[in-house]
């Protein structure tokens, strides 16, 4: 079902709504956020210069660095006493980024996630197990409130203790799983180790996956593990913008519908900052046009995608973003070639003797970059010829996809690290002594 009427507005109605919300937001941040006022003054742009949606391009960008520079509350547009929730990113480098919500923002967030849950096939009858870490991370609570809002029964099992997760899943007859794709696969692996077949012994029919890329190959691997008829959709968001709920896939699997009455999207050239025409691939930039606490203007997501505006067969008219091809900052440049981990993942998953987990290691030998891909051998063999064939096949396929020669390192099953949250599959050792 379609949750909100805003998901089916005509293009003209949507644009009119977006423009009025954009104008209101820009006027508000200019008045309430000194940091934005200074940035806009520096560019010589005033709120009244925003007359059409195209005028968005006149506004300054916001980056993660801006959030760090104004840590913790410098970009907030409301006094702190109006906040009812504060989250923060993990902040692996330097200060974390802090985000805050008013009561109105939490309602908006809940609405966004309710829409995404419905797109993925969720209903009030579902028992939804949320295997995202509860805490400062926005993923778990975002999905929690949205799914609860549509009437599903929430099992807030968080991450870790996979055996117990499976026990709940079995005993409560969980029908909907919220997890990262890699943790969903890990759970299936643990299930099989403990004699449970996820396809026949568990009742999971819907998987809402996020916080990591879902490549076609990974989706296929999830079907292999959880069953053909499980509805698998990916959803997208980030805490700076709101958390999960920015966009989500419908069951047509033709990109993720952006809740564009709340999040105004643009695609830019990540080097020049120029806005690119619809359909071209570039960095996604989002302006929050209906947020009270932290209305970011032209936030650079670093995610690479493209936008489609044609109405979808599912009945929604909202703009769709292609499933991500990578993050502009996850992209590796190896011997001058752009490499996205997703490309390597596709290859690894296409070799039947290998498991779905992998690790990418980039080193420098003299002046040359060296790429090594560690993979797990899941099919046992007694023959060196067979091992060499598996290595060679993987290597050849990578060469076709990347145009680079890689060294393949075969490992025993269960050797590579498993992740409960976002998988960290890249080790770039080039700048280390």
């Amino acid at each position, binding site marked *: 079902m379609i949750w909100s009427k805003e998901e089916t507005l005509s293009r003209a109605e949507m644009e009119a709504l977006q423009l009025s919300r954009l104008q209101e937001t820009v006027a508000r941040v200019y008045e309430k956020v000194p940091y934005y006022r200074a940035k806009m003054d520096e560019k010589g742009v005033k709120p009244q210069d925003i007359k059409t949606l195209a005028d968005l391009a006149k506004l300054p960008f916001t980056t993660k660095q801006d959030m760090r520079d104004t840590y913790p509350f410098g970009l907030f547009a409301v006094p702190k006493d109006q906040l009812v929730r504060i989250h923060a990113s993990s902040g692996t480098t330097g200060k974390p980024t802090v985000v805050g919500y008013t009561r109105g923002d939490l309602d908006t967030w809940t609405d966004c996630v309710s829409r995404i849950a419905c797109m993925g096939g969720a209903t009030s009858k579902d028992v939804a197990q949320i295997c995202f870490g509860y805490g400062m991370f926005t993923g778990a609570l975002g999905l929690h409130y949205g799914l609860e809002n549509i009437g599903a029964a929430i099992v807030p099992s968080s991450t870790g203790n996979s055996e117990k997760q499976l026990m709940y899943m079995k005993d409560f007859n969980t029908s909907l799983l919220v997890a990262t794709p890699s943790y969903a696969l890990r759970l299936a692996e643990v299930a099989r*180790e403990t004699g449970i077949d996820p396809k026949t012994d568990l009742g999971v029919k819907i998987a809402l996956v996020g916080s990591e890329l879902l490549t076609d190959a990974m989706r296929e691997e999830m079907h292999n593990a959880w069953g053909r008829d499980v509805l698998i959709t990916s959803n997208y968001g980030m805490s700076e913008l709101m958390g999960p709920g920015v966009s989500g896939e419908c069951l047509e699997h033709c990109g993720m519908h952006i809740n564009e009455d709340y999040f105004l999207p643009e695609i830019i050239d990540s080097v020049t900052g120029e806005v690119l025409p619809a359909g071209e691939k570039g960095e996604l930039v989002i302006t929050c046009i209906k947020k009270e606490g932290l209305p970011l203007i032209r936030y650079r997501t670093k995610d690479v995608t493209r936008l489609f505006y044609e109405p979808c067969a599912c009945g929604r008219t909202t703009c769709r973003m292609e499933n991500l091809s990578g993050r502009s900052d996850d992209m590796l440049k190896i011997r001058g070639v752009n490499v996205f981990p997703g490309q390597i993942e596709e290859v690894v998953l296409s070799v039947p003797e290998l498991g779905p987990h992998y690790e990418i290691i980039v080193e420098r030998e003299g002046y040359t970059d060296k790429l090594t891909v560690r993979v797990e*051998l*899941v*099919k*046992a*063999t*007694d*023959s*060196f010829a067979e*091992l060499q064939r598996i290595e060679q096949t993987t290597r050849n396929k990578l060469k076709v996809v990347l145009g680079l020669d890689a060294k393949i*390192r*075969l*490992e*025993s*099953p*269960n*050797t590579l690290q498993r992740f409960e949250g976002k998988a960290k599959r890249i080790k770039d050792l080039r700048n280390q002594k």
Partner: protein
Amino acid sequence: MASKQISVFIENRKGRLGEVLDVLKENAVNILSLSIADTSEYGLLRIISDAPQKGQEALSKAGFSAMLTDVVILQVPHTPGALQNILRVISDEELGIEYMYGLSVAGEEASIVVKPSDLEKANAVFEKHQVDTIDL
């Protein structure tokens, strides 16, 4: 006529062989012979034991890539040229052998393990030429 060998993939990493042996010890599997063939990156460990099925299952469960392989155990008299005679038969009959290794030298005859490419043909050849084999 065949014996079951456990074949295990192991990375060339400190302690890996010990981990395999730990699993076998915990499951009370006695090793009669083993051979390791390796490249710089990884090796294949081949084990003749008193409980191949149990050993392979325990290793797979412990996260190793392990399988059972059919091998033939040949009895070779302790006389110069005995192995050469057997190898001539193998060569004349065009029987492919993927690898071989020693199992035991105790007693009247030595035992060696061979992995034929074609088990059925190997059994027929050894029977025809009266090469002694034993099953474990």
